[in-house]
């Protein structure tokens, strides 16, 4: 066999191995640490009397709402009757609250701790289905408030996790590194295809 054949065989084995490694490491469906399901802890407040009852009744207490607003998330549309944000304000009718038991499979996620899921209501203008919005868990007399959503996770954690200030680069080459490697393989394959189709023999 020629050295070129050995090189081709080696490349094929390497690519097969990395594909197997990638498939083997794909997180299980509903893994709460996978990128799509990860949620971010915003703050924790004392679980005073009445807060849990209000949540069970389906309304978000003012204390939690104000803390969320203090955190910098939107209060709502800035003008009458317009929607200038992608995420809805926490007003009655925009959200609904459901208590999720520990160990439930729901929305592609396995709940390792029980808590209240604040969902965007399906009647909301931009969302046709209930969407996970906030998650509130009770632990040691504290109510911890988490916020879902991958874009938030990326914008808030990308520099801390990857050391890359550019969120696009971190998404392209770090979080979705396998994807980009596949694209690069496509480019290489395309170039080889053009060589095989267009190049005349003996003109290298």
């Amino acid at each position, binding site marked *: 066999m020629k050295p070129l054949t050995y090189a081709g065989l080696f*490349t094929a084995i*390497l*690519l097969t191995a*990395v594909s197997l*490694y*990638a498939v083997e*490491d794909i997180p299980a469906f509903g893994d709460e640490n996978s990128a799509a399901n990860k949620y971010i802890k915003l703050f924790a407040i004392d679980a005073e009397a009445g807060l849990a009852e209000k949540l069970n009744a389906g309304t978000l207490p003012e204390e939690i709402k104000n803390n969320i607003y203090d955190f910098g998330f939107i209060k709502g549309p800035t003008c009458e009757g317009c929607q200038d944000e992608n995420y809805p304000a926490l007003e009655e009718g925009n959200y609904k609250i459901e208590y999720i038991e520990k160990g439930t499979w729901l929305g592609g996620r396995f709940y390792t701790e029980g808590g209240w899921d604040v969902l965007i209501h399906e009647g909301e203008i931009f969302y046709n289905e209930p969407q996970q919005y906030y998650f509130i868990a009770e632990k040691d007399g504290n109510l911890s408030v988490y916020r879902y959503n991958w874009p938030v996770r990326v914008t808030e954690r990308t*520099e*801390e*996790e*990857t*050391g*890359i*200030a*550019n969120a*696009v*680069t*971190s998404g*392209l*080459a*770090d979080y979705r*590194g*396998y994807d*980009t*490697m596949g694209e*690069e*393989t496509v*480019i*290489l394959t*395309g*170039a080889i295809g*053009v*060589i095989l189709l*267009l*190049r*005349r023999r003996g*003109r*290298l």
Partner: protein
Amino acid sequence: MTPGKRGYKRDVIIEVTTNLMFPLTLLFGLYVMFGTGGTGGGFQGGTILASAYILYITVFGHEKGRVKMPESVNALFKSLGLFLYNGAGWICVLFSLATAQWLNMPAFWPVTDYVGVAGSRSFLVGYMISVGIGLTVMAAFVSQYFDLAWKEDDEMEGGEE
């Protein structure tokens, strides 16, 4: 190739401008390609590098362009880019004894103790992965351009004969 076989007249302005712009375009392509803090990335940098070579080949003809970018170098870059990318991941996997998920845990990296895990990740992304992408994109585009230019040239020669 002699000027007579070119099919068009030589233009001093275009040739001098190309000679001036060629290294600057390469430099700009490298600036876009390297690092993570700036604009662009591997794909964009590779495209700019390829555009420099394509400009050169368009102006001076593919035989003079072949001197700048020989086929051996082109083939080397084409696969070296993919090996760099693949190797960045495999270095992490091998040195972390298969606990890493691709680039997520480059704990092996000698500089990790000084710059932290995040810093090593950004180093790998900026100086191995981006460069790998850029080299492959550049070599693939230049190679495709050479192939197409040759085919057209052969057809034109055949028509003249």
